[in-house]
């Protein structure tokens, strides 16, 4: 069993790397989407909405295949790169939802307040709304990261050498029996161990922020929403 | 009942009931009686050793400022709140006893039965929004009392007619005015044929012009001899309908007696300032 665990652990850095980079990418891709969706021009809003709806409907595994095999003809991508791109794209609408919700949460009274002390629209946004929105967005974005960790498990399908791929090697190199059980049980445990501290930290942050902002009605709703926005358990 | 003299006898939780002493009211048989009621929420004490009873046919108005414990007292009477300690009896039989040497918690069935006997009408009506007015009244008839659909419907329509809303039976709560909703709520409780009706500020959430229709229904019930206990801000109700007025403050009964007497010449300074504030609103 210890042998199995050690073998599986080899895949952990790759899993983590994949999750982090994809998460960052999705966070960045979400920015233009949010911009579109909140635009004052109707056609842009419709476009943003369509993109969101479309991408949310794409199974992550399929996106992975499309990116890897599709782009292969033009650019040679390592499986890891393809995975980062695919997952970044697929989760972007959810990140965008988070951004949108945090902005709405703040805007309510704050824009007026910023106006009333003479800040123009841009200043109001940058100095008043944005800092608060960022704080609201952190817990659900951490949740999204957990989703990304789970999502990364599918990357083995195109050969990324992550935890699942290590499990594949282990099982193909053995003749079944207890080795299979140990391997499959092992990967579950590894994921539990990876996610648990992140969850814990997230809850701590949530609790602290709720205390800081005690009395504001809005935060609660945002955090409930974070439950809806999540990377899928697998794909 | 002599005004002012009825100071609750304060007893420590661990002492056994004092036979005969505080029972100047023993001659009167209480339909509903709570003794030595203490209710604590964490550190805060909402009720501090209250003795309260209602006799058949009585109409009691409980008044007090917010936070005085009056609503807690009411909710203990139908056990929506469980006393931290004390004893609750219905028609002479102990329903439940908490704290003290021999606590007795009512079973789920007994709780359900008790609430059938002691009905409650809420400040915010609390009709079930997914059911029609008729459905609201029928629910208890069918599920708690076990009537068939046909019987339940008949009885429910009777109750709705009683409160003057028979023709709105098929309406959903959001289609009804506040006054109408509250009347349906009364019908819903009445359908259970309770011996005692509890009202928790029944008109507080209503626009002024809707208050009268609800008070009219309550008056009607009074004329039929319904025993009732109402937490209220409406001095008019206390003066015109109630047979006894109870003033609560800081979890204790401060004074009680005929409403006319108390309103006219309150004995306690608490009552005095309370009345002044109620008259101003």
């Amino acid at each position, binding site marked *: 069993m210890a042998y199995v665990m050690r073998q599986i652990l080899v895949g952990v850095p790759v899993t983590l790397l994949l999750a982090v980079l994809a998460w960052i990418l999705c966070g960045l891709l979400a920015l233009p989407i949010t911009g579109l969706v909140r635009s004052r021009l109707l056609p842009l809003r419709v476009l943003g909405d369509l993109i969101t*709806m*479309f991408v*949310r*409907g*794409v*199974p992550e*595994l*399929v*996106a992975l*295949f*499309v990116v890897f*095999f*599709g782009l*292969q003809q033009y650019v040679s991508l390592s499986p890891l790169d393809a995975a980062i791109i695919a997952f970044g794209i697929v989760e972007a609408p959810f990140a965008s939802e988070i951004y949108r919700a945090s902005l709405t949460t703040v805007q309510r009274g704050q824009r007026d307040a910023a106006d009333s002390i003479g800040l123009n629209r841009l200043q109001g946004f940058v100095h008043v709304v944005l800092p608060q929105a960022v704080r609201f967005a952190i817990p659900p974005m951490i949740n999204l990261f*957990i989703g990304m*960790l*789970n*999502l*990364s*498990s599918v990357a083995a399908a195109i050969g990324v050498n992550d935890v*699942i791929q290590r499990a594949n090697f282990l099982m193909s190199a053995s003749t*079944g029996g207890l080795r*299979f059980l140990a*391997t*499959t049980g092992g*990967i*579950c445990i590894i*994921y*539990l161990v990876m*996610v648990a501290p992140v*969850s814990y930290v997230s809850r701590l942050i949530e609790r602290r922020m709720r205390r800081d902002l005690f009395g504001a009605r809005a935060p609660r709703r945002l955090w*409930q929403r974070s*439950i*809806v926005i*999540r990377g*899928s*358990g*697998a*794909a | 009942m002599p005004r002012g003299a009825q100071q609750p006898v304060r007893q420590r939780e661990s002492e056994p009931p004092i036979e005969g002493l505080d029972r100047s009211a023993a001659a009167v048989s209480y339909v509903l009686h709570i003794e030595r009621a203490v209710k604590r929420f964490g550190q805060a004490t909402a009720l501090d050793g209250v003795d309260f009873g209602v006799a058949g046919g009585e109409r009691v108005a409980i008044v007090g400022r917010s936070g005085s414990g009056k609503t807690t007292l009411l909710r203990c009477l139908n056990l*929506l709140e469980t006393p931290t300690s004390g004893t609750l009896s219905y028609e002479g039989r102990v329903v439940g006893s908490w704290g003290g040497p021999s606590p007795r918690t009512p079973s789920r069935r007994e*709780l*359900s*039965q008790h*609430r059938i006997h002691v*009905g*409650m009408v*809420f400040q915010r009506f*609390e*009709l*079930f*929004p*997914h059911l029609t007015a008729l459905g609201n009244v029928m*629910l*208890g008839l069918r*599920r*708690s*009392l076990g009537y068939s659909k046909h019987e339940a419907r008949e009885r429910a329509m009777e109750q709705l007619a009683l409160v003057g809303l028979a023709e709105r039976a098929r309406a959903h709560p959001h289609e009804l005015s506040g006054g109408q909703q509250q009347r349906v*709520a009364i019908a*819903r409780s009445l359908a*259970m044929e309770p011996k005692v009706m509890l009202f928790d500020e029944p008109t507080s959430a209503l626009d002024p012009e809707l208050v009268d229709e609800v008070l009219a229904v309550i008056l009607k019930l009074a004329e039929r001899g319904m025993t009732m206990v109402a937490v209220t801000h409406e001095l008019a109700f206390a003066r015109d309908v109630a047979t006894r007025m109870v003033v609560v403050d800081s979890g204790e009964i401060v004074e009680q007696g005929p409403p006319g007497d108390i309103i006219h010449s309150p004995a306690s300074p608490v009552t005095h300032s309370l009345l002044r504030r109620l008259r101003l609103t």
Partner: protein
Amino acid sequence: MSSIITALAPGATVTLELTGISCALVFVLSVALAIGTNSRVRAVGIACRRYVDVFRSVPLLAILYLLFFGLPTVSPALALSALWCSVIGIAVSEAAFTAEIYAGAIRSVSRAQWDAAASIGLSRRQAYWRVVLPQAAVPAAAPTINMLIWVIKDTSVASLITVNELTLRADSLININARPLATYLVLLGFYVVVTVPLGYAGRLVERGLMARLGGGAVLQ
């Protein structure tokens, strides 16, 4: 391209089967978990919360691997078909997410409704069934459609444990026709044609129910 479509089409049946059974299971399991989370029996509440914690942390694929590869080694009697492994795996995994939403929906029904139900003598079970759950259904409706979308997406992962649904069929087809991009794009089309309308439907439901039932509890 039409040849790709006809080649993949039979897989749609399997995908639909998977989706249908899994959804039903997810629904039942989540409602049970949601009620369990609010149980007054401490052990039950804790167990349900632990379940949700665990199954939100472990990816679906890991669960599928455990069921498909791991279980049979414990006992041959436990060797389930790939299909059943997928159904159970998806159900067990998705339920953890949906349960939280349903629990929130239940909690959004005001406390006073419980009081009102108690005041006409209803037992806790009757109160759940007749008063609370019907009201919780309103905020739970739109997320349920979202759950359906998630389940459809999850079925594609089942291809990795040999379930012959759409995605696996696409993989096999590529071995024959050597047109990966085209095939995968068609595959994409199959999914999107279902999930996107569902997404819009979910939004309609959310807005529609909010409008119709006015002051009903709204879960954000």
